[in-house]
């Protein structure tokens, strides 16, 4: 009697946890009879979240397949933005063997000497990569990276309220008719990019005046924007809360396929952005050869096809395209026509001072200039005064009571 229920409670908690952890073991311990001999090596792979075919719902479990074929284990982890990948890498302490950053981050990492040169003799499947994706602007000699997926940015719109003919220009996102129904990217590069193309600039301009002009354009647009969001656009568009949203084509393709009210256009009046995510090996990798085997494995057309059909982005390999269903390959969302691709521009890393300028301008756009920060300071000061007032009042009261 007495306190022993607590002991029982602890025992119960533990046994529950033990059972839970026991249940988890069989899932990872599955082994096939025809597996390659275990090499005992584990490589650390760092990729975008939800960016590989993972065996759910009858898809191919790419990492398990790699382990089965080569005997190399994969510790697979995920990140949410290029910037968090960069901070993880530059922070030190974490050793990755394969990373999959986007174009401009690849050029930044090359510039800071953070990538290992790849040995293309160990990556024979590089031969499947189409010519147009070789020697890209972010890696001109194609020494450090192997393209994994690519895509373009376009406009999603609600067919009930927006006419398809309006969406051929990015300017529709500045149309006061759609006040409060427009969504924008919640990252500086993509949001500024749209304004830059309206102004006819390059994405990679280093002229401070250009950036200032783009920022002014975004400030003009701000009263019309419902929210600056990333993945929330799926819910907002699907539910009809927002009518216009620029986004990565492949990501939101399911939206168009499943919701008949939603359309997608890649603007043709101005150019669009095409982006590439590419596999690289960071400096300091202790299993470079195994990492190259992994990259080679990702380039296998069969694996590439499995990955892009899970992710929804486009593959840089014609051989993989042949394994995909025809309606996907002919869908302009996934594989836009040549004339769009010829005009499309890729992000390249910006010099340090331009990056700083971009960060300040973006903060200004989102915060709404110095006027609003003054209100913020005023509110904070009011709270502080109130707090001090209460403290002084209490002290006086106590003193009076003591007397």
């Amino acid at each position, binding site marked *: *009697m007495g306190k022993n*229920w607590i002991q029982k*409670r602890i025992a119960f908690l533990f046994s529950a946890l033990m059972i839970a952890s026991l249940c988890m073991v069989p899932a990872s311990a599955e082994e096939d009879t025809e597996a390659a001999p275990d090499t005992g090596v584990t490589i650390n792979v760092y990729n975008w*979240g939800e960016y590989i075919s*993972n065996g759910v719902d009858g898809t191919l479990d790419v990492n*398990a397949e790699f382990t089965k074929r080569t005997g190399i284990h994969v510790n697979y982890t995920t990140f949410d933005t290029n910037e968090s990948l960069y901070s993880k890498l530059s922070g*030190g302490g974490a050793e990755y063997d394969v990373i999959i950053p986007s174009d401009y981050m690849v050029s930044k990492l090359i510039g800071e000497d953070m990538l290992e040169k790849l040995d293309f003799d160990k990556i024979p499947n590089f031969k499947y990569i189409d010519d147009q994706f070789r020697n890209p602007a972010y890696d001109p000699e194609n020494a450090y990276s192997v393209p994994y997926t690519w895509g373009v940015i376009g406009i999603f719109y609600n067919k009930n309220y927006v006419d398809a003919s309006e969406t051929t220009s990015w300017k529709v996102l500045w149309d006061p008719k759609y006040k409060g129904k427009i969504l924008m990217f919640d990252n500086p590069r993509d949001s500024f990019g749209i304004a830059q193309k309206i102004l006819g600039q390059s994405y990679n301009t280093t002229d401070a005046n250009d950036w200032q002009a783009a920022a002014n354009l975004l400030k003009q647009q701000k009263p019309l924007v419902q929210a600056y969001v990333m993945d929330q656009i*799926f819910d907002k568009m699907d539910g009809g809360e927002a009518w216009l949203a620029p986004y990565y084509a492949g990501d939101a393709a399911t939206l168009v396929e499943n919701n008949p009210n939603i359309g997608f256009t890649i603007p043709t009046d101005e150019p669009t952005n095409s982006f590439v995510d590419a596999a690289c090996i960071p400096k300091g990798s202790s299993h470079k050869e195994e990492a190259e085997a992994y990259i080679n494995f990702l380039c296998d057309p069969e694996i590439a096809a499995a990955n892009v059909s899970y992710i929804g982005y486009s593959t840089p390999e014609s051989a993989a395209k042949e394994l995909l269903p025809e309606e996907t390959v002919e869908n302009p969302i996934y594989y836009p026509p040549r004339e769009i691709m010829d005009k499309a521009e890729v992000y390249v890393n910006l010099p340090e001072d331009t990056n700083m300028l971009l960060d300040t301008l973006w903060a200004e756009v989102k915060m709404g200039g110095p006027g609003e920060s003054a209100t913020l300071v005023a509110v904070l000061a009011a709270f502080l005064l109130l707090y001090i007032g209460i403290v002084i009042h209490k002290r006086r009261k106590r003193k009076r009571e003591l007397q």
Partner: protein
Amino acid sequence: MKVLSKIYCFFIYLFLYAPIVVLIVFSFNDSTTMSRSVWSGFSFKWYGQLFSDRLIMQALGNTILIAVVAAVVSTILGTAAAIGINSLKRWPRRLVMNITNLPMVNPEIVTGVSMMLLFVIAVRAMNTSLGIGSIMIAHITFCLPYVILSVKPKLSQMDPNLYEAALDLGYHPSQAFFKVVIPEIIPGIVTGMIMAFTLSIDDFIISYFTSGTTQTLPIYIYSMTRKRISPEINALSTLLFAIVLILLLIVNLRKEKENKEILQDEEEP
């Protein structure tokens, strides 16, 4: 007035539980678009997918392992520390308590970054890399003050003569400690442990900086935000919520039962 207070209570509970209800409802949503806002029929689809998703299961396994280790170790260390602090003189005690409380008011991001910097130096010296070990150390560290804080009040409530009485009656000091002191303070220890466990499961910021190449569930969920957070996470959250609810119910029912027994015992003689 009574009606007003009922309405007030209703709204408080509504705001507390509405998000959880929505989350649970949409974990049963049968939709191919992975929609989180449009209902299209009942199914267990996401539960099935959840258990076949190796990455989620691995992240969950890591999270639970880290939480159990952090809870157990920080409880042992924290209890020992609380006993030590309690027997200090007044001024040193105040000083030590303030120092232990400092990490709690420190913004998590500061704790996270500073731990990362420290671990990176240590890891370079030892020629390894950050991983599950460094997260465990970090979690034990930030859980410690909470354990101390929940054990210490129980110690100050305890009659200090109890321990000495046990010694006088022939107990060895270790026996006296385990049979007299521990039973007195066990509610504080359990509270501290449960708190440490939940804090560790929840933690994102500190884990994010100290995790190296290990991935916990919060980090994994956060990394999904470029594409979209899969309803599998709804299913997982629903299961966790249900397990916690059942545990709470069991605990409370047992408590109820024992209270009744105590009452009966008191009435009988």
